[in-house]
């Protein structure tokens, strides 16, 4: 599904990843883990084509990551960022921006699974907690039903109960998806089927 060979990645003129190789298969839950500043988030950016490896290559579903294939590669992905302070009023507006307003039923399913109700997507982001906001963003992205789901520090604003619910969703609802995450959280790392130390 995803194969990286001898890649080196720089971010802000600093070489953060050197000579890394990994393979991630369909249905895997792979987690990049390791100390801060080692390039875990940079790897997720690289998989989306926002950072280009200076050496080596990356293939996603046999498509090499390059300008010709990037649109097709991104169409396979959903991405939940670490920074959820997006400049939008609420989840409903964000859903429209993603051109996914028709996926409300899916959003409702995932938002319920994460312990909230659909009405929450109408709540102003500046009036709800970081954890609620993060769960809304996660539900919106999961509703897109993409083959590859990228999570950058998904537990950063979640309590242990919400982390458990999210892990249940991944285990039960995303068996046929490839989940790739970057995390510090030991519970999250331990739940991954493939752990890649960075």
């Amino acid at each position, binding site marked *: 599904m995803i194969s990286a060979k001898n890649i080196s990645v720089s971010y802000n003129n600093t070489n953060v990843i050197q000579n890394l190789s990994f393979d991630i298969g369909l249905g895997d839950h792979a987690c990049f883990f390791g100390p801060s500043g080692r390039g875990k988030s940079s790897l997720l950016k690289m998989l*989306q*084509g*926002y950072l*280009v490896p200076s050496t080596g290559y990356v293939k996603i579903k046999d498509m090499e990551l390059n*300008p010709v294939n*990037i*649109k097709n590669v*991104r*169409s396979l*992905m*959903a*991405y939940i*960022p670490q*920074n959820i*302070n*997006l*400049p*939008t009023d609420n989840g409903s507006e964000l859903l429209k*921006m*993603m*051109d*996914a307003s028709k996926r409300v039923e899916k959003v409702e399913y995932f938002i319920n699974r994460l312990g909230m109700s659909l009405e929450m997507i109408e709540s102003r982001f500046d009036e709800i907690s970081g954890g609620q906001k993060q769960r809304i963003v996660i539900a*919106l*992205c999961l509703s*897109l039903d993409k083959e590859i789901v*990228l999570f950058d520090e998904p537990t950063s604003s979640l309590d242990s109960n919400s982390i458990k619910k999210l892990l249940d969703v991944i285990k039960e609802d995303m068996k046929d998806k490839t989940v790739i995450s970057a995390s510090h959280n030991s519970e999250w790392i331990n739940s991954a089927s493939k752990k890649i130390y960075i």
Partner: protein
Amino acid sequence: MADIGFWDLAFGFTILAIPLFVFIYYKVKLVNDLLVSVIRMIAQLFLVAVYLEWIFEMNNALINSLWLVIMVIVGAGTTVYRVKLNWKVFLIPFIIAGLISITIIDLFFIGLVIRLDYFFDARYLIPISGMILGNSMNHNIVGLTAYFDGLSKSKELYYFILTNSGSRKQAVRPYIQEAIRKGLNPMLANMSVVGLISLPGMMTGQILGGATPVTAIKYQIMIMVAILAGCTLILILSILYSNFLVFDSYGNIKNIRSINKNNN
């Protein structure tokens, strides 16, 4: 019409003490800009008086068109400077956006609405185009500043939408919406109160020049509609053309400010 003497004109400038005092008191670094703008305005308008007389006398299609092109180039240059973009990268796109827009708007209003026998008549073509371009430039600067500031400062949203929607068109949409809102809202607000709290310059000028209020109002309505259409067209064309320049082949936002430094 009562003339203004040169001494009276000079006396009129003393009122600029108000903005000068405000800028100095609040330490807003606009004093130099104000002085340069006033001097430029005086020089340009007196020059206008000289060359407009000549242009009106000649009333030649080629000269009038050339003058239009010069107005577009100056407008595009001012826009690049005010939005703090790179000349080499953005000047040509903005000139092209301006030329396309003014051609369409002039063809429609002068050719189809006013239906002049001679389309290039300097008395119509130059002041009407000047009003459209002048107003468009102001609103274009506001809109483009909002667009480029948004892309520079809120990149996370762009990348979030780009991956999750898979479409760059979708990813830039919120920034374009914001640019249109910020660029054109003041004009819509102005339109809605025109005649109540503001008497537009063109209408006032026509009435002072002896036209009937009804004729002056008809022209004013037409020119405001033309300005709104022209502003929208120039802004959207400038943004769409810029989009070919501000993203790399992966759809990443180039560092607009560093492009500036590198090329200036």
